[in-house]
């Protein structure tokens, strides 16, 4: 176990190093004077400011030195400052990460909670009516692009029925859980559609295999009730695969919330990234990209380790 852990950690450090290098090069490779890329267009006549920023950022140093400084700063939680909005990138991330995290978490939970019964009952009555209906449903929900689903939800639940708000965000700390869920449920549902379908399919396939095992037959022979067998005997071994997938999806969703946040105008990281893109705020784009990729890599590693921890067969090796 210790050996595996050390190997994984070494790999994590190597990956993160490469990720940071790539993110740095993304901006470094920009053609032309880097100062012109950092500043808003109207500041470009101001030669004095440009010179000040050049010395402030020590842009005349060799690229390798600047990369070293950038990474050291990043490790200490300093991702630089936006020259467009005058905001520190790390502050922007800290302000906005709760919304993104909650959306990703809520979407993962929705996808998991709905997928388990759908997958389990589809497998239990393989080829039956429920299975066939769900197969159509999962194909559809896998294929509808999240942003199309989001806009359709807004049209249906806000404009037609007027049940839920289409924009804005209530913080849990300000308005309580219920008001918060009211603003979070539509975006989270739109996000959950694709992972829901993937989960349901995987759980179904996994359980069809499990249900053919001998110990299920012997449980049946003992006269145990079907529901009990399904939940206790069949779902348990399948839950390992499921947990791994849920974790990986959570990591992917942190990147996936970008568009959904924009559509619902939520104060999350994705909205900040997009507004940074529209303003061509290079420091902000670079910082958020590095942050999201880091979270993604770390979450994936944690899921890997969790899998090791849960499965005694792998742990013993």
């Amino acid at each position, binding site marked *: 176990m210790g050996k595996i852990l050390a190997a994984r950690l070494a790999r994590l450090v*190597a*990956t993160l190093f*490469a*990720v940071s290098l*790539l*993110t740095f090069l*993304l*901006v470094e490779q*920009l053609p032309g004077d880097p100062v012109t*890329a950092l500043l808003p267009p109207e500041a470009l006549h101001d030669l004095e400011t440009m010179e000040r920023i050049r010395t402030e950022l020590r842009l005349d140093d060799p690229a390798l030195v600047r990369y070293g400084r950038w990474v050291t700063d990043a490790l200490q939680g300093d991702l630089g400052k936006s020259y467009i909005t005058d905001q520190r990138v790390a502050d922007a991330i800290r302000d906005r990460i709760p919304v993104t995290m909650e959306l990703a978490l809520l979407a993962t939970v929705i996808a998991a909670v709905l997928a388990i019964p759908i997958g389990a009952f589809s497998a239990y009555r393989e*080829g039956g009516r429920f*299975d*066939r209906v769900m*197969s159509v449903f999962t*194909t*559809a929900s*896998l*294929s*509808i*692009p*999240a*942003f*199309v689903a989001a*806009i*359709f939800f*807004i*049209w249906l639940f806000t*404009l037609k029925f007027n049940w839920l708000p289409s924009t804005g965000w209530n913080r849990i700390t300000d308005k309580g859980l219920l008001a918060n869920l009211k603003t979070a449920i539509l975006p989270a549902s739109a996000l959950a559609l694709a992972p829901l379908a993937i989960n349901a399919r995987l759980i179904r396939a996994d359980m069809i295999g499990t249900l053919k095992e001998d110990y299920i037959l012997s449980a049946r022979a003992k006269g145990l009730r079907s529901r009990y067998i399904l939940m206790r005997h069949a779902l348990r071994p399948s839950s390992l695969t499921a947990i791994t997938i849920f974790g990986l999806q959570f*990591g*992917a969703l*942190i*990147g*996936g919330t*970008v*568009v959904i946040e*924009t559509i619902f105008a939520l104060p999350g990281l994705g909205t900040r*990234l*997009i507004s*940074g*893109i529209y303003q*061509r705020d*290079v420091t902000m*784009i*670079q910082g*958020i*990209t590095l942050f*999201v*990729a880091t979270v*993604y*890599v770390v979450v994936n590693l944690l899921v890997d380790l969790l899998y090791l921890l849960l499965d005694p067969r792998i742990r013993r090796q």
Partner: protein
Amino acid sequence: MSESKDITGSPDAKSKGNGRLSAVKEMPFFVKCALFWLVFIVSAAIYTRLDRLFGQALPLQDPFYQGFLFGGASPVEGPSLDHLLGTDILSRDNLSRLLHGAWVSLAVAITVVSFGIVFGGLLGAFVGYARGRWETLVMGIMDVVLAFPPLVLLLALVAIYKVRSLPVIALVFGVLGIPTYVRIARANTLGVASREFVQAAEAIGTKRIWILFREIIPNILPSLFAYALINAGFVIVIEGTLSYLGLSVQIPEPTWGNMINEGRRDIRRTILPIFWPGLFLTLTVVSLNMLGDWFQQRVAIRSSAL
């Protein structure tokens, strides 16, 4: 899926027919529909290109003609004989814009798939068969690219480098799509390389490069194709998303994504200008997914019989 049943039920039906037509015949009904839709979309894309080539001489409305400026139509009309799917908020013909928009989605998807199969497939097969230091290096590089959430890296690239033209966008998508194909090609190569026919070829002293091209690559291609179909759907969604954000091919050139974005401004009045491109996007992705699933099952059956 329920369709899987009649495929697995009659494995001998496949061996009877030869050629591609018999494969179409034994498709389940829904997969046939999917294929039909994809053929329709591809023809639409080609037709609209020809239409532009001939200076809009073919029978189809002009996708840029604004009826309320020059007469002939008003904004957000419902479906009529002149405009089969109605008009958008600038009173342009929806149907024509949808068909013209198919080109961007397809061009990007086809670029990604061919880059993936040609470069990714070759690279993956090569390192999977050669093993050793090259394998470690190449897979390490691929892992770094895959360490980014796909949309975020694309957004950063497109935003920082101000990429807005179709060829460059297709190129960026194509290059970023390669790593997954390398992974799949390598994983399959590892499996194929341990099979008897490869060992036999090695035993009689066939050159390794010959084995790579004659024994290994033909055997990993089916699983690459199966992935390519599903991947094409994914790419079309990502391109649609970028288009929706206004970061892909620019208006007035129609793409399904930017049509949805333009339609959003009038969502209170009507959903139709959003509904059509949304439907086209979804149907195309559904079709690719269904065809991909079906193909994957066939590949799985065939390789288990190998």
